[in-house]
């Protein structure tokens, strides 16, 4: 069972559930105000959206939600946690991932397809991924800023770096590799009908956990 956490202002939770199901798994929602993850949770997804309307800073308020203590315990025990877009911002704000997400270099919201390079195949998420993925981005504050020496930059935008992140980082993992945050939206790329299935591998990795 995959738990998809729902905060007020979460937007991509339904798409994340559908993506888990497309990968052959089952998913359920975890509510932000609860103190425990649903029984039988094997892995956690923090979905995209504008939790708490991005008030204060994106992810700042959600990172202090009661459910986040349970997510932290899950991560500390080696469980997989995938943060997508706002979920990535929440994980950085919670200190589960290094760095912060700053406003895009364009100073605007950017919604478009991007080509990603998989730089690090040595995490549970990326072990079976190919070398390149075509997945959309859609965010306003997606420029990762941090010390590359302290971070595992797992996914990169390559030469293009559309948002202006340090090291062209698109996705960052913790040292153990069991917590991954990425700005692109793999849940928008699990169905040929919508143009790409390159995001499916990340959900397959969760389901396998």
């Amino acid at each position: 069972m995959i738990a998809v956490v729902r905060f007020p202002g979460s937007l991509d939770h339904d798409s994340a559930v559908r993506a888990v199901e497309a990968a052959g798994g089952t998913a359920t929602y975890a509510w932000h105000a609860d103190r425990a993850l649903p029984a039988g949770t094997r892995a956690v997804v923090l979905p995209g959206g504008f939790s708490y309307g991005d008030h204060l800073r994106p992810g700042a308020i959600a990172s202090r939600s009661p459910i986040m203590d349970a997510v932290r315990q899950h991560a500390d025990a080696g469980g997989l946690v995938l943060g997508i877009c706002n979920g990535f911002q929440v994980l950085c704000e919670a200190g589960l991932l290094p760095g912060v997400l700053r406003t895009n270099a364009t100073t605007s919201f950017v919604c478009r397809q991007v080509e990603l390079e998989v730089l690090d195949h040595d995490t549970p998420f990326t072990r079976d991924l190919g070398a390149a993925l075509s997945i959309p981005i859609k965010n306003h504050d997606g420029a990762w800023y941090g010390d590359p020496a302290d971070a595992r930059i797992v996914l990169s935008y390559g030469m293009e770096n559309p948002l202006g992140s340090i090291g062209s980082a698109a996705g960052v993992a913790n040292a153990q590799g069991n917590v991954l945050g990425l700005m692109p939206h793999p849940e928008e790329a699990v169905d040929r009908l919508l143009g790409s299935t390159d995001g499916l591998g990340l959900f397959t990795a969760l389901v396998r956990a």
Partner: protein
Amino acid sequence: MSVALHRQLGLTDDEFAQIPILIGRAPTDPELVMFSLMWSEHCSYKHSRRMLRRFPTDGPHVLQGPGENAGAVDVGDGWAIALKVESHNHPSAVEPFEGAATGVGGIVRDILALGARPIALLDSLRFGTLESARSRHLFTRAVAGIGHYGNCIGVPTVGGEVVFDDRYEDSCLVNAMCIGLVRADGMLRAAAFGTGNLLVLIGNRTGRDGIGGASVLASAELSADDEDKRPSVQVSDPFTERKLMDCCLELAADDLLLALQDLGAAGLTSAASEMAAKGGVGLDIDLDRVHLREEGMAPAEILVSESQERMLGLVSPDKLEDVLESCARWELDANVIGTVTGTGNFTARHGGEVVVDIPASALTDDAPWYEVPRTPGPSATPLALDTVPVPADLGAAWLDLLGRPNIASKRWIYQQYDHLVGANTIRRPGGDAAVIRIPGMRRALAITTDCAERHCELDPRGGGRASVFEAARNIACTGAVPYAASDCLNFANPEKASTGWRLAEAIEGMSEALEAISVPVVSGNVSLYNESPARAIYPTPVVGMIGLLEDAGASVGHAFAQPRDAIVLLGGGAARLDASEWLGAALGAPALPDLAGEAALIAVMVVAAGAGLLRSAHDVSGGGVAVTLVESALAGGIGCSVALPLGRRADETLFGESGERIVVTCRPDALPGLRAIAGDVPLAVIGSVGGGTVDVQLGDATVSLDLEAARIAYEATLTEALA
């Protein structure tokens, strides 16, 4: 200062004189304020209501026609699609970011009021030219406002269009369309019923923002002192809107709501009086129970505040606890503010005293209506071709046209909108119509907004037809069947000159076209007074249309697909420069769109796409066939080579417009099948796909455009003008 209160509020002396006759006494001040808003053009359609009856509104699939918060049609498998277009023009001209943002919020709540989940947004925009610093500012901020709101509430902005023209310099247009999904048997209505049932106000606190927006802003011409009207513009809070959506949909799914209504123009006054009048009941409202943002608000202020992100639910007393619990879970304020009574009166109390007690229907059904003067405008004179200079270099002219703001790529706009959220977007912005999957169904929807405003200026009836057919062709290019429409009629001051005639003629033309393709209008909106002392807008009847695609996987895009595919020009339209983008002005006399010809072309497209014959399809519109070919080539990253009959003049053949033409591509071996389907619809094989250039042979000469040069010209304009 000696001006009577009713005049300050925008009521005429005759209208003011009607009120005592209706209610049997002089109105209290709060009552007078309520009448002034409910009888404004924006709320009562007093100048347009009679003409709107002309629209075809029936069809076997229509579940909800005009009259509710939004219309709805049956799309099969027990599902319905709700749709509506609405304007937020005047607020956007005063404060573009909040004006545009709250426009999105308002249309989303109209859809939500049916219990429908909003699944797509589109925006139809008209602004002054990009040479105007003021227009660049208004446009940039309006786009930012639309993006801010739509992105944050998680409803994808999948399409729309924009036209830049000096005629919109003083009166920009911001129209928003929303599409929603709801179980056909679970649709909510706004009518209140059942004495003792409770009115629950859910969402934002009520403040002094937006007071008088409907009468002050939306029902008068704009003038130089408009900055004084800024307090009349509402303030947006998309985070609360998202929670309101989540909460109301949860309440609807749990069967906890008897009726639902959004608070828009004229706030609580409009919402409650419409609920009461529709249900033929009374409402007793305690204004002390309305949760306020600031202290000391007067009863009239509470009654007409247009604070955003508020919904009014009708709840049975035994379900109240569940409703309040759900609202609390979503961290939304919710209060019982009134009850249904059997009196038929809108009653409001404040501090224990009755401050309003009038028949609800006096506010709604008894609103005045006016027969507007219909002085015909001048009839258009056909363009004399010899008055149009012949371009010295056709290739350079072609590149120039591709870079004009009304033709150039709109990527700068739609990249700022989340057009994907929800994971249903099959065809993204940039093509003819957006295509979205209907969650849980094999079917998909094609959606577009369109308007032929320059054509409407010259011939409103022809332009009305052209607006509908442009939308229908865009739908049909994806392979979808045009299925239902909503409209937003943006016009100038109806009390002046030919505006009434233009409005009536446009409605007539639109209706003729809609009847020709059997598409009903299920909802709509009217925005009048779009003029300043210096300029009136073009008549701009925006058509929002949805089409139904049987197989979501079988939609057709506009990109050229494969080398050697045959390029076919379908339809009998003739290339003419009258009112064209190449001419860049409302000059000439565009041909009256042919009802039978357009309908036949659309039918052929649907059948050909359904048979799987089409590799691409792209409507010939602004910029003519030359622009159509380049857009398909750029989207596919592959060029083409075509030959066209020279016609009267090369520039007319290349850049001439008129409806009833679509460029399609197919495998060469599919041509016989396509010919068989086309029947009497004119079909010409004009060339084939391939190469890195777009080559057009005209008689003995060939004009050639390098694809990379075309891409630069097409993509650079908006970014350079607005970044």
